[in-house]
Structure formats: structure tokens, C-alpha cells
């Protein structure tokens, strides 16, 4: 089959087209704001000020961004292998079990810097195990990973409700949540970093898991582009046939990729549980697993794109909270619309503006005819 579209220069492919798609997504969101009877430009100003107008706001924005870096990386790693992991939500939710397994047993024994690495391992392991069954079914039995991961999101939700209501809830308590952790399972805040550059923070949940997220982004880049495993993952994603021909074990790569993806999603649980709430609550993931899809699509599955995309969504979450305060008609659900529109325009309709952009580029370079086909080459 012929490729539907010709090639563009790299900066246009990775910069210009995503930017156009993003602008269109926000323009459509602006129409929704108009329908609600508010001024979209004023809404945008409030949003940006709410997200970046001071140390406090920036700290919150980065706190939310931490979640989205993890889930965005999780979706991206699977994308590189040609797999669509919609199960980030469930994997992150179950990842919370790994965190509390460490926190509830060791919070009185060790200081945070011992518990943190253990909790990282616990959450990554729990998330990876939750991704293992769909991965195994895809690799060995050919069950579609999209469907199984969706099913596993629902199964995770039921499982966690059961565990929180019937098992983990301390006796005599009504709220479905674990007990509050002791000091040994509280992650230190990073507010001093913003204080140091002259942006005072009163109190914000930004904590060391933000740094962990940045490290994870670097490690993902390292794995995907600088290791043999990453090469195999990308080969499998580009052409399963070529991978099989090259002797790459298909089942092995699918399972390993999904477990990395699940581990990254699971690590997201560290940020809200150990960094902010200090207990495991119902629905603590609050859709971050799904935001990861939008983040990965916007960031073109590259860590260098995912981190800014995650910060953009962090801005929407934090600024959206301020916006809901200023314009009561626009609640936080506006973010869900924007998220959907970003997924639509940056993901499903990514080719919508490509032909136009290509013809504009062609008109610039029309003085030199594009790829003259010599008769010899055709033969």
C-alpha cells in the first residue's frame, strides 16, 4: 500500500502540525465557552494567570503535571510497540496498592528516604502486574489489548472499592480510605525550590515525585532510543513482520513493553498518595490515566514532548480550578472537553491539516522541482 502523504521537514512534522492541531482544539473549546455565555479570551487569561501567576500556582501546576508525566510516558512506551494501553487509569489505581503496602507496614520504622525507593518498587510492581494479564493475553492468545485494558480498568475500580470498603478501611471508620500514614511515609515538598528563585509558596503539594517523573522521562528516552530493547520495541511497533523476520520474540517484547508501561502508570500513585493525601482514597487517580493518552499524543510519544504536554495539562487542571472560581458556569469539566478535543485533533485528526501544510510547503519550494523521477529509477 502506498503511503497516503509525502514527507515534511522535521520541525514542521513535530512542531508546526501539533501546534496547529492544538490551536484548533482550543478554538473549538472556545466555542463551548461561548455557548455557555462567557468570553473565551477572558477565560483564557484567567486560566493562564491561575496556572502561572505566582509560586503557589506554579507549584500546583507542577504537582498535577507530575501525574501526567507518568501516565503520558506509560501510554507513549506502549505506542512505540504499536500497542494502545487505555488501562493507565486502572494500572495507576492498582499501583496505589503497592504504595500503601510499603507505607502502611514501614511508615513507623524507616524514614522517607528508605520508604520512597521501596514504594517506587511497590507501585511499579503493582502497576506492571496489572498490565501483565492483558499483555499476556495479547501476546499469547491474540486478545485485543484495547478491549482487555478497558475491561481491566473496570475490574480495577471494583477491586479497589472492595478492598477499601471491606479490607483496608480501619475499624470504626466510615470513610472508605486507609489510615493516615505516619511521618515516615510523607514525601518532602519541593516548595523551597520555587522559594529559592523568588516565588514564595504558602503550601502546595509539589513533592520529590516531580523529580522522579523527570528522571523517569529521561530513563524512558534512554530505553527507547539508546538500548537494544528499545530498538526491538520500535521495530515491533513499526513493522511486526520485520520484527519477526529479524528474530525478535514478539510475545516477549509485547509483555516487557506492557509491563514497563504499567510500571510507569503505577508510579503515578506515589505523587497523590505519599506526596499529598498521605492515605489511599477512593478514585485518587481522577482521570489522570486517561489524560496520559492526550499527553502522549500531543507529545508525539517523545519524552521531550511529553513533559511540556504534561505541564500544559497541569496548567489546565490548576488554571481550571481558578477558572471555576471566577466563572461558575465553567466547572472543571471544561478540562475534560479540552482533553477530548486535544485527543481528537492531535490524535485521530492529525492528518486533517497535513495536506494543506504540505501544499503550502510545496509552493515555497516549487522553484526546485520535488524529487525529479528519472526514467532509470523507475525501471
Amino acid at each position, binding site marked *: *500500500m*502506498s503511503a*497516503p502523504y509525502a514527507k515534511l521537514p522535521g520541525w514542521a512534522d513535530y512542531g508546526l502540525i501539533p501546534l496547529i492541531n492544538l490551536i484548533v482544539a482550543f478554538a473549538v473549546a472556545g466555542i*463551548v465557552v461561548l*455557548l*455557555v*455565555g462567557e468570553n473565551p479570551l477572558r477565560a483564557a487569561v484567567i486560566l493562564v494567570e491561575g496556572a502561572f501567576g505566582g509560586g503557589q500556582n506554579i507549584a500546583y501546576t507542577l504537582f498535577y503535571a507530575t501525574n501526567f508525566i507518568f501516565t503520558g510516558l506509560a501510554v507513549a512506551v506502549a505506542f512505540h510497540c504499536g500497542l*494502545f494501553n*487505555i488501562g493507565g487509569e486502572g494500572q495507576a489505581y492498582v499501583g496505589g496498592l503497592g504504595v500503601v503496602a510499603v507505607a502502611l507496614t514501614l511508615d513507623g520504622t524507616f524514614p522517607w528516604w528508605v520508604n520512597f525507593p521501596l514504594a517506587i518498587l511497590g507501585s511499579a510492581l503493582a502497576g506492571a502486574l496489572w498490565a501483565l*494479564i492483558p499483555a499476556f*493475553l495479547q501476546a499469547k*492468545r*491474540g*486478545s*485485543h489489548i*484495547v*478491549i*482487555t485494558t*478497558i*475491561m*481491566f480498568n*473496570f*475490574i480495577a475500580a*471494583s*477491586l479497589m*472499592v*472492595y478492598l477499601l*470498603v*471491606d479490607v483496608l478501611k480501619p475499624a470504626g471508620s466510615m470513610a472508605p480510605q486507609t489510615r493516615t500514614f505516619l511521618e515516615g511515609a510523607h514525601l518532602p515538598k519541593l516548595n523551597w525550590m520555587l522559594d529559592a528563585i523568588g516565588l514564595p509558596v504558602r503550601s502546595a503539594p509539589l513533592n520529590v515525585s516531580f523529580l522522579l517523573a523527570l528522571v523517569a522521562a529521561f530513563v524512558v528516552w534512554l530505553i527507547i532510543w539508546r538500548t537494544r530493547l528499545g530498538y526491538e520495541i520500535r521495530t515491533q511497533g513499526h513493522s511486526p513482520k520485520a520484527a519477526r523476520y529479524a528474530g525478535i520474540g514478539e510475545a516477549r517484547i509485547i509483555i516487557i513493553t506492557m509491563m514497563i508501561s504499567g510500571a510507569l502508570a503505577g508510579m503515578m500513585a506515589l505523587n497523590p498518595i505519599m506526596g499529598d493525601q498521605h492515605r489511599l482514597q477512593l478514585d485518587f487517580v481522577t482521570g489522570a490515566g*486517561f489524560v496520559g*493518552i492526550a499527553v502522549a*499524543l500531543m507529545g508525539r510519544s517523545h519524552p521531550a514532548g511529553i513533559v511540556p504536554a504534561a505541564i500544559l495539562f497541569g496548567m489546565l487542571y490548576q488554571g481550571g480550578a481558578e477558572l471555576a472560581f471566577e466563572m461558575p*458556569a*465553567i*466547572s472543571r*469539566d*471544561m*478540562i*475534560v*472537553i*479540552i*482533553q*477530548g*478535543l486535544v*485527543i*481528537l485533533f492531535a*490524535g*485521530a*485528526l*492529525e*492528518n*486533517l491539516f497535513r495536506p494543506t501544510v504540505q501544499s503550502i510547503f510545496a509552493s515555497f519550494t516549487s522553484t526546485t522541482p520535488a524529487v525529479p523521477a528519472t526514467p532509470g529509477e523507475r525501471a
Partner: protein
Amino acid sequence: MDFFNVLILVLDSTVRLSVPLLLACLAGLYSERSGIFDIGLEGKMLAGAFASGAAAAVSGSAWVGLAAAILVSVFLALVHGFASITSRGNQIVSGVAINFVAAGATIILGQAWFSQGGRTPLLTGDGRFGALNLPFAAELRDVPIIGQIYSELLSGHSLLVYFAFFMVPFTWWVLFRTRFGLRLRAVGENPAAVDTAGISVAWLRYRAVICTGILTGVAGTYLALAQNAGFVKDMTAGKGFIALAALIFAKWRPVPAMFACLLFGFLDALSIRLQGSPLPLIGKVPVQFMQALPYILTVILLAGFIGKAIPPRAGGVPYVKER
């Protein structure tokens, strides 16, 4: 006769609970049989429910609500169609996007237009699809067994319930006994062959997603105007995904789809009925396990332990004409 009465009650609520699943499942059947995967059933159903609730509240007529629901769901289905047929985008991504847009937009618009916390105003009378009583239902009520089955189980549902069950043989007839159905199935298996025969792949698939839009609109209307008295935010609550599971469970065939939806509806009715009370032999089953059962069953099916579910061959792949 106590057990029998309970059974009738559970089966009656099974019918009520499986209708939205059935409509959404048949909706997905048209689309997926034509080679367009549709994860966005949930979103289209939700948008349809909101549109019907809003339109019925403003106009006072359930029929206007139904029309609005179909219009909105077909529009979303066409967006999905445009993304996956014309624009050759990723069908899964597009479906996910539609779910989010619907989830957010229904709450934002509902709050802005009606200011009732995302609900639409409560409907009464002509604003809803009320219960229809089949002829002689009242007279036959006292006949043992048959009377119960006829007047409780079969009679007294809304028009949309009968429509949903009518759609099962109708869909079977369309898919397996008409020219359109043959072509629809062919385009999902081998679009190149359909194209070679001189039939437009794109137009066939667009018609299939329009069918999907119509049926999800009816499913949403059922939720908002028959099962409830107005739209409540997130009222689909994962039903679109259970319908998707039922579709796989039924291996993309209309009559098994009905049985799969009835099974999942029965599990739902049973978990509401039991509410954690112990079962004989098994002991106490957590409510959450019953709620998760449709998903677990689907995963087991997908794993190939109960037969094998083979999706339409061209599903999820955008069609590119050879050049």
C-alpha cells in the same frame, strides 16, 4: 410461589436494565461489522441522553427529545466517521476523544442551561416514554404463572423496550438478508474486494456509522426519558463499555448479542436484588464482584477459553485505495 414472584421481579428488571445495553450493542454491531471500531458508544449514548433530556424538558414532548438525541448522536458518529474514514485516523483514539467530549460537554452545558448541578429538569407525562400495557394484561393478571409472565414480564414496558427487542430480528434481517447487509459485512472483511466491485467503501461505512448514531441516540433516550425522568450527569456509567463487551461476547452477531445483553442485565439485576445477602452454596459474594463480572467474563472469553471471538478482519484499519 414466593420464589416464582421474586424470579419474575428479577427478570422484569433484567429486561429494563438490558435494554440500553442491547441498543448500544446493536449500534456497535453496524459500525464494527463495517470495519469501524467504536469505543465511543458510551459517549454517544451519554450525549444522546443529555440531548433528549434537554429537548424534552424544553418542548415537553418525548418525541422531540428522541429526535434531538438521534440528531446529536448521529453528529458525533459522523465526527467519528470523518476521523476514521475520510481522515484515516486511529479509530480507537477518535472513540476515546468522543467519550471525553461528551462527558465534559453534557455537564458544562447542562449546568449552564438548567443550573441544576448538571441535571436536566424532572420530566412528567408526555415528556417521558411511559409504560405501555399490552391488551388483556389486567384481565390475565390472576391466571397462575402465565398471567404473571404476561402481565408483569412482557407487558408494562415503554415503547423503546419493544423497539429494542424488535431491532434484534430486524438487524439480523438487514445484515444477512439484504444487499446492504451483505455489502456491509463484506466491507468489514475485505474492503478492497468491495471497492473492486465498484461500490464506494467510504459511503458504505458512513451509512454504517449513521446507523450506529441512530441506535445510540435511542439508547440514550431510553436512559433519560424511559428509565429515568431526565438526564443525570454520567448516567451511562460504563454501559457503553458493557455493550462493547456484550458485542464481543456475541461474536458480532445480533441474536447472541441479545442474549449477552440479557445475561449482563441479569447479573446487574441480581446484584441489585442481593445487595450482599448470602447465596446458597457460595456464601456471601461482594457486590463489587458481581459488578465486575461482565468484564471478567469478557476477558475470559477474549482469552479464548469460551469459544473464540474473531473480530471483522478489516476492523480498525483505514482503507487506502491502491494507487
